[in-house]
């Protein structure tokens, strides 16, 4: 059974569904439509947790800013 649009949006906002899956469930909408629907529903954009990715983020920072001292 298809879940309602509002539930799918809420699941995406909580980080429990990817944008691609959400876009497919909502009929192939664009990512811009996702932003608009989230905003209209008063839901925040999902925020990927950084826990467990500290090393990767530190590596990215080092590559982005090779002169960084820290």
């Amino acid at each position, binding site marked *: 059974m298809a879940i309602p649009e509002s539930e799918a949006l809420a699941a995406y906002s909580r980080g429990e569904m990817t944008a691609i899956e959400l876009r497919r469930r909502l009929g192939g909408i664009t990512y811009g439509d996702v932003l608009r629907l989230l905003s209209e529903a008063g839901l925040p954009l999902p925020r990927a947790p950084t826990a467990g990715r500290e090393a990767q983020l530190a590596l*990215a920072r080092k590559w982005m800013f090779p002169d960084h001292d820290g």
Partner: protein
Amino acid sequence: MTVDLKIFVVDTGPLITLAVARSLDYLLLINADVIIPDAVLHEATFDASRLGAQDIIEWVKAHRNRIEIAPTRAYQVFDAARASIANLHEPDLGERAAVEVIEEPDRLLGDERGLLLCEETAVLRRVVVQDRGRIVELSTLDFLRLLEMEQRIQSAEQVFELAGKAGRFPSRVEKFSRHDDATQAAIRALVSRPSGRPES
């Protein structure tokens, strides 16, 4: 310009999020080439009335010396097919093109490193990366936070919150018709360059 770092924008999310927040130039704040698969650019801009589309087109046109539109077989096939199938839409076209670009064997040479900028971890899971020590996946917010940590921007959250309010503002691109001829021509010109390499 040859640099050791390449930013691969592997789905439409970062482009649209930054465009809505009027922050696309943040992608150019670090010394790196920006690579956008042709199909990702197409998905983000094919309808000029969509959120962020017109801003993305103008931004790419203004910075062609820093941005490479990477040609892909996936987009080439799609482009040929839509000549005979009106309103053809492939939801995963951008994702497939991104995978194709990242997996090109000569994409990262020598000491070059790659940042995959995306909203979707699903993209990276599909990539066969020989040396994962040379590629790091970042979300848009990760990227903005790193810029903030280095004091290149004031606030990552502010950018993200602006994007999150997208639906509360009237779209500045609504004045463009759905199939604006000039816009469509601009998109086609951007994604049809034979080499896809930046102009010197």
